[in-house]
């Protein structure tokens, strides 16, 4: 276990996790590939350019990958485990204190203080319902009458001699 460093907020237990999967490609790209044949030297330049691009993509990706499977968990003692858990939870608590604006969820608007009164009062007037149905029918009919009025050709030929 590497132990906690004062400058880093969360200690990385093992170095293997951050060790690069691929060695940086300081040499010609064909050396990075597994089982690269020597014949790469004789390939036309187009092929090696493509290979160069592919291996640079590979190198960039590998640099950003943390190999979790390489982590060698040597096991921590109980008190170290508890200490670290406490450290993480205090850090979480500190962070969540700064996020107060998320805690205040917007309340649903209150339509009435007297739900029983609203429920017991007269139902919505049937005339109103008929009015709404009429409006909906008018709107639908108006919408269905919308159509394109084509005035000119959409595709024209340019007069290029």
């Amino acid at each position: 276990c590497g132990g906690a460093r004062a400058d880093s907020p969360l200690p990385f237990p093992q170095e293997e996790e951050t060790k690069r999967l691929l060695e940086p490609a300081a040499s010609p790209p064909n050396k990075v590939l597994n089982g690269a044949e020597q014949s790469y030297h004789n390939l036309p330049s187009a092929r090696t350019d493509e290979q160069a691009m592919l291996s640079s993509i590979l190198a960039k990706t590998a640099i950003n990958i943390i190999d979790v499977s390489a982590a060698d968990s040597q096991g921590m003692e109980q008190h170290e485990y508890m200490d670290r858990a406490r450290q993480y939870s205090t850090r979480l608590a500190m962070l969540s204190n700064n996020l107060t604006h998320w805690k205040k969820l917007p309340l649903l608007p209150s339509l009435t203080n007297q739900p029983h009164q609203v429920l017991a009062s007269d139902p919505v007037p049937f005339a109103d319902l008929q009015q709404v149905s009429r409006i909906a029918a008018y709107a639908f009919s108006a919408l269905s009458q919308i159509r394109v009025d084509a005035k000119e050709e959409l595709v024209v030929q340019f007069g290029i001699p």
Partner: protein
Amino acid sequence: PGLTAAVSPRSMKSPAVVGVLCTDSQGLNLGCRGTLSDEHAGVISVLAQQAAKLTSDPTDTPVVCLESDSGNIMIQKHDSITVAVHKLAS
């Protein structure tokens, strides 16, 4: 012009009507006036669609009513469009 006339001012002429909105089945605001606006279109279209599931009869389109002390918002779906009318209590 037909749609604008249907949405307003004809329906807004009714004294207690303070808001009207038309939306398509996906919540696109096709036109609105008064208290109902863009932001309501999505909820209105979804309420109408969900209410339609209460019955298996396709000709029986329910009118969804949001009732409050001050007035009601009535929502009805007509084929591909949904209309909402906000009417104050008289």
